[in-house]
């Protein structure tokens, strides 16, 4: 008696449901690519800046007077951006950990 009531009676098949999941997968993939791209850019930029700072005739020396004033702000902004992107990446992973 209960078996008759409780068994699944319908076949729930919907292409919209499948498409919705595929869209989410694609969006998550694009977000990860974006984060990876920005982080790579920051990493490369910092590396170039660090290497140039060590050279005597570096272009960094010519912009150093301007840079010193805003240096801390730039570092802070980069740090905040990196933390934000890391947080985004980690929370994306955390949501998957059930």
């Amino acid at each position, binding site marked *: 008696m209960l078996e008759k009531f409780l068994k699944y009676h319908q076949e729930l098949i919907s292409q919209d*449901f499948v498409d919705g999941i595929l869209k989410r997968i694609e969006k998550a993939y694009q977000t990860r690519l974006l984060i990876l791209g920005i982080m790579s850019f920051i990493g490369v930029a910092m590396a170039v800046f660090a290497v140039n700072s060590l050279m005597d005739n570096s272009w960094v020396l010519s912009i150093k007077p301007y840079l010193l004033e805003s240096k801390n702000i730039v570092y802070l902004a980069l740090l905040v951006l990196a933390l934000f992107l890391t947080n985004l990446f980690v929370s994306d992973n955390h949501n998957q950990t059930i």
Partner: protein
Amino acid sequence: MQLSQRSDQELVALAISSSDHKAFTSIVERYQSLIRQFLRRLTAGDTAQADDLAQDTFFMAYQKLHTFKGTGSLKSWLHTIAYRLFLKHIQKHQMVELGENDPILISEPQSALEADLLAEKMMQRLSADERVVMTLFMAAEMSHSQIVEVTDIPLGTVKSHIQRAKVKLQQLVEKSQLVA
């Protein structure tokens, strides 16, 4: 060989190794009905919430597909994810639950849709654990050991939940027949 004819293990392997989503789409198509129905029963008929959780289930399955070891079945693994998402959901949101004396009108369903709606309504009488074991046992046709695998609830507790849920639902059906 068409994707729809391949085994679960083959589809998982293909979904992990290939860059397109065709194999994973096949997995979703194969299990969407089971998982959506399962979550409709757990949410006792909140179809919108059930479908959201079902989407989350497949999305998470895609993200974690590489961790699927293949020791159990894909069906059990997907049900495990769905069940855990449901538990997480009810930690934040009130679950629809009816008291023993709250009436539910049970009449002979005229269609498959009505029959499912009635089953979902009957679930409102059960606790979350009773809903999950009862649905896995009666609707998803899982064995006790498979239910243990999905829910992590000890075997003895699974059996007692099923027994208690059967009594509750039997009383509900009998009461409604008396009313009728």
